[in-house]
């Protein structure tokens, strides 16, 4: 599953999207292992870009499909997962590549993830500023997906409250992964994704 992010100005310094690179890398590894790999981009809902198929030669097809993906609307992970479940695919590994910033929040997404029959690998793409925002002054923040605007005056107190909110979010995701037995991989979207994945495969170190 690959989240199709809504049209936002990308802050990544590394090409068309860390998500696409990550998806391609994982697909290449799986195809090399003769696994079947499908591609299911989602935003407000999920669609089938490529039904699970095997073969090393499918990598190029995979890459072509990834390159042709267009930005979607607002993310609705719960709905997208419900659609995935309705496909009644053979049990396997579902890799969800997203920042998990869902409009319904984790309260809606985690139960939907829990209902899946598949094994789960959650790949969370984050930026440094997501955990520790380096913002100052009076700002009007615009959500790149929903367009919602929030006016803030960044103060130390507000930053502390933000960190608490972020930590609660992260704790909820980690807690779910631990409880569900799912894998949780956090990648720095501002850095090169492939070296980070290489570290994962070489050292086996990931969050959960």
């Amino acid at each position, binding site marked *: 599953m690959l989240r199709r992010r809504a049209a936002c100005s990308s802050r990544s310094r590394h090409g068309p999207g860390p998500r696409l690179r990550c998806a391609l890398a994982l697909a290449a590894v799986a195809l090399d292992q003769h696994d079947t790999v499908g591609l299911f981009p989602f935003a407000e809902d999920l669609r089938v870009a490529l039904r699970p198929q095997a073969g090393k030669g499918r990598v190029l097809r995979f890459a072509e499909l990834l390159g042709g993906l267009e930005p979607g609307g607002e993310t609705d992970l719960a709905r997208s997962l419900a659609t995935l479940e309705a496909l009644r695919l053979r049990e396997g590994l579902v890799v969800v590549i997203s920042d998990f910033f869902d409009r319904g929040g984790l309260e809606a997404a985690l139960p939907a993830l829990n209902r899946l029959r598949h094994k789960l690998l959650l790949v969370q793409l984050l930026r440094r500023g997501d955990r520790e925002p380096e913002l100052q002054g*009076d700002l009007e923040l615009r959500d790149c997906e929903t367009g919602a605007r929030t006016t803030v005056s960044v103060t130390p107190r507000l930053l502390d409250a933000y960190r608490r909110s972020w930590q609660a979010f992260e704790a909820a995701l980690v807690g779910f992964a631990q409880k569900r037995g799912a894998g949780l991989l956090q990648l720095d979207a501002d850095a090169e994704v492939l070296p980070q994945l290489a570290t994962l495969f070489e050292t086996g170190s990931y969050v959960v």
Partner: protein
Amino acid sequence: MSLTWLGLPAFLFGLAALAAGLYVLQQLRVRHRELVVPTTRFWDEALEEARARVLRQRFRHPLAYLFLLLLAALLWLGVAGPRLDQDAAEDTVVLCDASALSGGVAGLEARLEAAGDFAATLPEAGRRVLLCGASATPLLLPGEPVSLLGPRLEGVAPEVAPPSVEAVIARLARDRDQRRPLRLVVVGDTALDEAALADLGPGCRVERLPVGSDATGTGPVLVALGQAPARDGAGLELLAGVELAEGMAEPAVAARVDGADLGAPDRVERDGGVLSLRWDGVPASGGRVELTGLPLPAALRLADAAPLLVAVAADAPAACRELLAADPGLRLAGAGEAAEVAVTVGAASGLPSLVLADAPGFGFRVTVPAGDRRAAREVDAFRELGLADIDRVDGGEALATDLVVTGGDARRVEVDRRLLSDSFDWTRSPGFPLFVARALRYLADRAEAPPYLAAGEPLRDAPAPLAAPGGAVLDPLGDAFVPPRSGGYAGAGGRPLEASLQRPAPVVAAAALPEAEAGLAGGAGPLLWIPGLALLLLLVEWFLYRGGRLP
């Protein structure tokens, strides 16, 4: 520190208004920078948590508000005009001679400028500046800023009055607060009497503030102006003395009486620096004589030697008429002439009258008008005539010969006419013509013109009260009258007086006075460091802004 332009309540009110205004502006301050973020979810949650912990909307950027408030407060303080007041350990009075005899206009300007510069160095509390002319005019009072001096000096000119610094010093020393030392600073070279300064008492000291050349520019100065009966008995002699500085040319002095030219003096003598002038044959008309050719006004009221015109009742005793013929100061009014006084029988006429009364119950009675103090003094002249000693011829009726003085609305003299009869020898005594002469002159209220009258010098028996030049009424209350300045003075008896400005007689000048030292006050004071402090605040604010501590 005190404030020049605002009272403390107004200053505090303005400061509070600034603080409130800046507070409102700070609350309304909106300078949001737009930023696109992946999600606002966490910010919304953070704001919700922060809002839940306060009762009202948080005041933003108090540090920036504080800086603005400090800057605004400094500007407001500058508007209020702060000044540093030093405690005055003593009272200082700066005395500026305004007499026209002390250097004229140039001299006064030099002294005033020096006085202003000196006053600026003194603490405002306890500082006074006085202009010493005909009266002591305050130019600066304690607590007033020296900036008020300029507007108050507009139109100030030398006064045609003698120097009065000495008299002002004496009065200040007498009336001072005994708990505080008094320092008197005399600006310029005004001569001060050594004896006068010796009596000032402890706690009082006099200093001198020298001024370049404040005594020059006066020109020839009148030192004497007077009149005397002519030696040949015809009219009067007019005498004048004029002081000339070394190298000064003799002025062309002439005289005029009521506008009629008397011409140049008949005699001129020079003795050193003093020019003596004399005019002969000046008519004793009671007119006003003035000298021309001198820089300062010089005038005198001449004696009036004209005979007193008397109207005598037809039934008055012949002795009265005979007396008028013998007294050159009296004359029987002829037909068509306006008599000034009258001799009546039985009752007074419309003129001030010597009334020969029928059995009045007294021998002599003099009526003194209420408030006419000179008349009261003249009554003494009647008592000197020995009226009580009038002899009765044998067989004559015994009559009272006492002198009664009473008050009334006009001058009057009454005599029991029986005393003029042959039953008494009064009309044959020397006392009778004296009595009649004095009585008629008393009735006429002819005040004798003084032989001379100088501003600043006393005149006894002046017809008080008097109207001074400018209309002020002066009343010495029984003391000698001292004209404060030169000019005409209208007496109560209608006889005017004329005072001239003459240089006072030289005094034993006090030894050299210590030179006054300037104080330490003045300078730019707070108005200098307020802008500097404001710039420093701006600099600090800039550094904090650059460091991200201020928006």
